[in-house]
């Protein structure tokens, strides 16, 4: 069937396709050795959920990269348990260790003992040889990649093949194929077997559609989560394979403190004579942030970074991702040149000394109280920003999880409620809250306790009955 189709196309598009087609099974058998299936568990208070992702071997030291979508960003690294790595087509697994997420690529890194990975080949083995630039596939060029079947079929590898429909900066240079070409996180090759890219999460294939402002009118589309048709090009992949996070939290993370970056609409850009480049509006400059210290203001329009004008990307919303990536290349303490327009005519070159990203929700301390049915976590800078309260004094704790039908749930507590007082006494720190809740939980004679919580702009007093 497949060869029939190739035969049909051969005279028109690819002279010599018949000759090369015969090589693909051999190329495929060799390249399957660069991919693995990775199983792990996401553990929470009430459940242990299995997860499956696909990975590509990045080097010969046992480093495996998983696509950004492999892990929910709200999940804390210590909730990820029991990584198991399967070779394509093998039921047996070897243990792996989670190394963290790289902020720039979004990849999750996993490590396994290289001795146990013997016989596998890093993806670099299939890059362009002798320092030659990575090939950029041409429009309509045929590309192929690897998919993996599910666990019940021992993650058996299979081939996917399609043609290039479009190459676009999103903001990474990415190819969009006509059909699925690889499982997300797995490599894509050209007819010669040279690496041309790494498939991104399958959400990418609907990226353009989802980026439309009038999404309401778009039809609902089914996303194939096991296969993808979008892949950042090899030039966006190979230079970053070594970005193994220095810590499981992904730190160090550079912090600018410009909240709500909004792209300039093309009509507005034209009106402001910025139509040859990109621009983003800073909705708010956060309190105490490096951006504020460097003199940036709410509603400044960023037009250049480190002296280079922002590129004109399509759709214009992609430029926000560009700014985020430029920032992610930096480290805390680095200088970041941010050129902004202010008001109708002012142009300001700000030199920002980047800071350390304030503690993220996924890094917060947490404590679960089973009898109360509640997990509390630290209240962090991001919570204060979301609630629009002063970021200088971070008090109280957040209900991170409320167990259904537990005393806390029956009292009306919701996840994300901000707990300000316990039994009428203000909660200043996480440790205080944990101390008081632990005492309440341990006291079997307690009949009830009272929480003062904030929810959005409102507050409520909740009485939690224990008996």
């Amino acid at each position, binding site marked *: 069937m497949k060869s029939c189709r190739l035969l049909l196309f051969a005279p028109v598009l690819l002279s010599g396709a018949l000759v090369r087609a015969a090589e693909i099974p051999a190329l495929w058998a060799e390249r399957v050795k660069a991919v693995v299936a990775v199983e792990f568990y996401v553990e929470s208070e009430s459940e242990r959920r299995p997860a499956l992702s696909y990975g590509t071997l990045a080097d010969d030291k046992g480093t495996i990269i998983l696509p950004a979508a492999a892990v929910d960003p709200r999940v804390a690294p210590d909730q990820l348990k029991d990584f198991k790595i399967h070779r394509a087509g093998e039921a047996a697994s070897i243990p792996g260790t989670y190394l963290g997420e790289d902020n720039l690529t979004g990849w999750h890194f996993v490590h396994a003992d290289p001795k146990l990975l013997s016989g596998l080949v890093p993806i670099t083995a299939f890059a362009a040889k002798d320092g030659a630039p990575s090939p950029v596939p041409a429009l309509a060029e045929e590309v192929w990649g690897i998919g993996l079947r599910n666990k019940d079929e021992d993650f058996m590898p299979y081939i996917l093949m399609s043609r290039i429909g479009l190459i676009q900066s999103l903001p990474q240079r990415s190819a969009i194929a006509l059909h699925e070409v690889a499982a997300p996180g797995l490599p894509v090759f050209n007819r010669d077997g040279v690496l041309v890219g790494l498939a991104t999460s399958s959400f990418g294939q609907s990226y353009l559609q989802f980026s439309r402002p009038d999404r309401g009118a778009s039809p609902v589309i089914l996303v194939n989560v096991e296969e993808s048709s979008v892949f950042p090009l090899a030039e966006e992949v190979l230079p970053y394979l070594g970005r193994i996070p220095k810590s499981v939290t992904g730190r160090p993370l550079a912090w600018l403190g410009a909240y709500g970056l909004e792209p300039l*609409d093309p009509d507005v850009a034209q009106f402001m004579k910025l139509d040859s480049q990109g621009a983003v509006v800073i909705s708010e400059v956060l309190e105490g942030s490096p951006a504020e210290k460097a003199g940036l203001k709410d509603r400044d329009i960023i037009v250049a970074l480190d002296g280079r004008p922002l590129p004109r990307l399509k759709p214009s919303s992609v430029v926000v991702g560009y700014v985020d990536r430029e920032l992610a290349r930096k480290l805390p303490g680095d200088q970041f040149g941010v050129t902004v327009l202010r008001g109708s005519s002012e142009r300001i070159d700000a030199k920002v000394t980047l800071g350390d990203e304030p503690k993220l929700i996924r890094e917060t301390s947490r404590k679960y109280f089973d009898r109360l049915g509640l997990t509390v976590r630290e209240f962090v800078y991001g919570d204060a920003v979301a609630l629009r309260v002063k970021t200088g004094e971070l008090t109280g704790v957040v209900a991170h999880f409320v167990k259904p039908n537990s005393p806390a749930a029956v009292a009306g507590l919701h996840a994300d409620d901000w707990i300000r007082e316990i039994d009428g006494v203000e909660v200043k720190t996480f440790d205080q809250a944990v101390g008081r809740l632990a005492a309440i939980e341990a006291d079997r004679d307690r009949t009830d306790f009272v929480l003062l919580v904030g929810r959005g702009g409102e*507050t409520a*007093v909740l009485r939690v009955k224990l008996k």
Partner: protein
Amino acid sequence: MKSATVKLSSSRSIFALALVCALAPAHAAVSRGFSQLLDAVVRIDVREVTFEEGGKHFSAGIGSGVILTADGLVLTNAHVASPRAVEINITLASLEVVGAKLVGWDHWTDLALLRLDRDEIRRRGLKFAHAEFGNSDKLFAGETVYAVGTPYGLTRTVTRGIISNTSRPFEDPHGIDGYETGSFNTWLQTDAAINPGNSGGPLVTEDGKIVGINSRGYAGADNLGFAIPASTAQPVVAGLVHDGSITRSYIGLVPGALRDLSSFYSVALNVGVLVNSVDPGSPAAKAGLRVGDVLLAINGQKVDGRFPEQLPPIQNLIASQPVGAALRLTIKRGNDTHDYSVMTEKLESRIGEEWAFEKWGLSVRKISRSDARERQLPDETGVLVIGVQPGFPADVAGLSRDDIIMKIGQQPVNSLETIKAAYAAYEAKPEPMLLEALRFRRVSLYILKP
């Protein structure tokens, strides 16, 4: 016209049936008072303007009302006749139709007062009766009451039921076309059938005295209707006659029922009300009141807010203080009891003035002080987009409902006048115009192009 005649005759026959059923067991209802009441009930047809979907639109509705005075004051619901009304026609008991004007409205109690066109009445020699208020405070659950009105356009329909509950608390922050209602009064609940169109008609006792103004019912439920008590309506009527509006005070304290928390706060049973929320930037916040405080007394007058039914009267006590007066609030916090002085402000609705800019296909509502507080905006700058018309400049620029326009050109939008002036300039000479708008705290720029 023909269908209208059919409608009228059929409604008459229903009326007759209802009267027969109602009167057979209760002869007191054929009192002179009751028949006078029937002659005072009117049908109200309202045409009003709305500023939705980027344009001015007109909609029509039917309600009920009752004539209160010989000079033609008609009481109805605020959700029947509001300042948006452009044409009001009243069908008298004689089936003659006469025009009317809005005297004033009060969405907080869902009441509006109209006046019949006196010149027209005199010229045409029209006659009508007027009804009197009864004492709604003396009602008891189980007492027989009648609802009179225009359900589904069936003019002069009488239904009978009982008072199901004399003080039902029911607060709705968006109840009257988006306006707040029910914070300052409890409601009479009745099982007398109340349907759409009954709104604004009277709930009366057997002697024909008005004890309530029928207002709302649970859709889909069987005979769960609600009426504004006469004791609430009477002072509102007096205020509307006098000023055309009701002025209330605001301090930004949201009360909560203490229920079984009395022991936790170490207050005696049936004393105090919980401070459930304090509006940011409000007088109560400025005075230092905090959530979790217990309010014991207002100007020395003890308050009891143990149950939700008791909260509207407490809210009303605060609201009925003069604007700009210093209130002495006795507050218990922890083991300490202190007096706080809170300066009252004028109560305002969250809903600001609305307007439509038809060539832009844009309808807007001014951000009010309380809207700004609710949305945590720094001040009252801005107008809220309440509608855009597809294919018109505002829609093409990318604006959508719930965006807040903060600037037009380089001019902050401090009032509707700012944007009206920009629109006038655009009408005179259509040129691209730059807008700045907020969408969920995010700032975007837009171009309105001719």
